[in-house]
């Protein structure tokens, strides 16, 4: 039985994430928490994020949660979602802030001058909606998820890892960007599995049963 802590640092509604995990893994204990001790006790940790990354970093520190995140990311099954993926990297162009530096690389904005599709039509930013996710490494979290499945995205920034070897999936808008990354016990996704219907629920089910090994 998994004991899953969803880290709450005051940015956005985390009940959707909790609802979705409870739905696919009724036997798991799911807690939305801002208590470092509870996060460190949990068997699995979910690190979500909404809004702007500078605010997320500030709120994380204001609540004294940085240490609990850093330690969890070292030692237990750890799932970053959306800004929770972006914060794992060294730096973000959004407000030019430093991230947690757990993964090497930076977070960049979709460049307005390149946002055109093949037929020359303007692409909007934020990137909102259901896009295809092309997995590029075999991973327990991709189990039962078809190649090219669509997941729900909403973001204006994307991560560019230094090490392409950690890219677990890419999506295209209009160029390919890393829509999921994986390194050891860390898995992080730019999309929202909790809002991605059956494919998203499958990923969360896989996470709740994951032991952190690849």
């Amino acid at each position, binding site marked *: 039985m998994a004991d899953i802590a969803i880290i709450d640092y005051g*940015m*956005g*509604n985390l*009940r*959707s994430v909790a*609802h*979705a995990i409870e*739905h696919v893994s009724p036997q798991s204990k799911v807690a939305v928490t801002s208590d470092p001790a509870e996060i460190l006790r949990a068997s699995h940790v979910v690190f979500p994020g*909404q*809004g*702007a990354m500078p605010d997320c970093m500030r709120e994380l520190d204001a609540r004294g949660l940085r240490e609990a995140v850093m330690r969890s990311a070292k030692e237990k099954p750890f799932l970053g979602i959306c800004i929770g993926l972006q914060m794992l990297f060294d730096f973000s162009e959004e407000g030019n802030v430093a991230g947690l530096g757990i993964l090497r690389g930076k977070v960049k904005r979709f460049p*307005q001058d390149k946002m055109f*599709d093949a037929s020359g*039509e*303007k*692409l*909007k*930013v*934020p*990137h*909102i*909606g*259901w*896009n*295809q996710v092309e997995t590029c490494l075999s991973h327990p979290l991709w189990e039962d998820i078809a190649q*090219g499945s*669509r997941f*729900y*995205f*909403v*973001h204006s920034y994307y991560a560019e890892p230094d090490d392409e070897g950690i890219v677990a999936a890419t*999506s*295209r*808008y*209009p160029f390919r960007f890393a829509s999921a990354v994986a390194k050891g016990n860390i898995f992080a996704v730019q999309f*929202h599995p*909790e*809002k*991605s*219907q059956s494919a*998203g*629920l499958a990923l969360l089910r896989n996470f709740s049963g994951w032991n952190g090994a690849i």
Partner: protein
Amino acid sequence: MGLAKRIIPCLDVTGGRVVKGVNFVGLRDAGDPVEIARRYDEQGADELTFLDITASSDERGLILKIIEDVASQVFIPLTVGGGVRAVADVRSLLNAGADKVSMNTSAVSNPDLVAEASNRFGSQCIVVAIDAKKTGEGKWEVFTHGGRRQTGLDAIEWAVRMQRLGAGEILLTSMDRDGTKNGFDIELTRAVSDALDIPLIASGGVGNLAHLAQGVLEGHADAVLAASIFHYGEYTVKQAKEYMANRHIEVRL
């Protein structure tokens, strides 16, 4: 392949029921919101939009309960609008399980609310709804209070201003077409969508599946919203998507 165009069923809710009006008046009962939400989710709806059209403030709590029930059973994005007047209203809807909150009249009477809510909760969850009516050749004006009050604001300029203040999406309804089943006001939709960098959701007038495709292909909408064609079982969301896919529109099937 890339980002799919979205199909969004819209549920107008009052007194705990889904209803549908014609030209903003004359309501018909269309069923239980949670049941309808589940049905659309099963059919492959990309998102759901709930508009609380309750007039009296003592029934305002009903929508929160509905959103809580839907959010614990349906795992796609939920937008809720209607009667959002303060940052506290945005917060309580988000806490109930809404992913996005839509503002219309209150954005006009207090544009700072859009900026404030966007700064506080992120632009990804702020939708500005615009009800527009044609007032001349290539001219549309913004109306509020469910279409009863003229504002003197140009719809295109207003949409761009809302983008600048922090809206993450614009939900544009043609009042001339709403409830008529004659199709979107394509000229309006395209003019606003082309003026924006953020996504545009087209609304008002869908009577058949060809209208949905037109909204995307000719109106340049990023998402299309419809109510009555789905509520009364004329078409399923799945049929709508298959129709669009046959027109080479990228959809989530």
